[in-house]
């Protein structure tokens, strides 16, 4: 899967779970400030990403993940 296809897939998960318009899902977007997502919502998003990409993300790996870009890097590092 190339990077663009992966981000499209990532984006559709984020749109579905966070209920925000697709154009708000940018690499720079912050979960709390830009997407109004609290920590439980980030957990829910990660669960959706685990299913979509068939990966496993440990809870400790989410420490310091504050933006879409950081979350996307975490996902692609496991592909």
């Amino acid at each position, binding site marked *: 899967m190339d990077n663009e296809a992966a981000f499209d897939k990532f984006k559709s998960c984020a749109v579905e779970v966070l209920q925000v318009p697709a154009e708000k899902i940018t690499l720079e977007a912050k979960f709390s400030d830009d997407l109004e997502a609290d920590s*439980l919502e980030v957990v829910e998003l990660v669960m959706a990403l685990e299913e979509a990409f068939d990966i496993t993300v440990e809870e400790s790996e989410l420490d310091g993940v504050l933006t879409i870009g950081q979350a996307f890097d975490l996902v692609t590092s496991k592909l």
Partner: protein
Amino acid sequence: MAVPGRRRVAITGVGVVSCCGIGSDAFFAGLCAPAPEGEHRVHDFDPSSWFDVKQARRADRFQQFSVASAQMALDDAGELGVDPARAGVIFGTGVGGLETLQQQITVLVEKGPRRVSPFLVPMIMGNAGAAAISMRFGWRGPCETVVTACAAGTQAIGNAARLIQTGRCDAVMTGGAEAAMAEIGIAAFTNMTALSSSGVSRPFDRRRDGFVISEGGAALVLEELDRALERGAHIYGEVLGSASTADAHHITAPAPGGAGALACMELALEDAGVRTSDVAHVNAHGTSTPLNDLAEAEALAKLFGAPGPVVTSIKGITGHSLGAAGAIEAVCCALTIERGIIPPTVGLEELDPEMHLDVVTGSPRQLPDGVLLSNSFGFGGHNGCLVVAPIGFTAPDAQA
């Protein structure tokens, strides 16, 4: 009428989500129409009227009913102008977010623990409804949940009224909600043989064979009377008093002879400062189970004599919505006062010959002058009774 030294409590807003109608006009019209056929779900409830998509997905159906009914009640009450620190929420439920729990247990079994929703806990907890209401309105006074099965709605309202009577709050959003019609809930009630095998709710009828499970929510805005009068609020009536007792007898069966129900009704009338002869109408628990209706009828006959005040059970129409039932029936009482009409006990065709009650059947009846008593009795032996009255009511020989 006033109990000396106690602030008075006005009902200034109502909201209701019921299988026979959403909103007070549709609800009251539904109570005076033939019983709905099939399952008593709130088929036409659309959460998007009250929530955005994200909020709705994170709120169990019982919480959605809680918030929807509370929002309708607040809209109905108008601008309260209340200090948020002196505004409370006291809500009831029987089981909380059962549908979410069932669904997430399926996820656990099929996909494993890592897929269980991080929102499970805040969705299933019984206090989710009350919490959501306080957050929505920004009310920061007491926010608590009463979990006493089928008595929860009535007891919540009694507790809410006390917060105003004693001066802790100036306004309280109160009521109850239930959405326990998940397969697990229906199976459980079926297997304890509580549900009607005929699927027909027939309160006080000789052929009654169990209750018909339903769901819904209802809310009332209670407000300190002088404040309500000052702001020119529409006042449905007044909560005069209430009582809460336990049978201390059996986890599901009522105490023999309706002893628990009788004690609770007596205490509620005493709390309200009225006598049995002041009671014009009883909105009965009347679930249509053989045991409940007989015990309640015996208690009513002992307290009031035969035939006593005019009795109705709206569960012939609404079915039994468990922790929401008492709140739905309190809203019915408010509307009964406002419209001067008592809805009939639909489904009752032949009164059980062992009962000596004046039950409204067929068509609605005019509300006589006097106070109203609303009863709720729950598994666990919980009894709740509420006394409400038109705002101008004065007991005839209390005038001096």
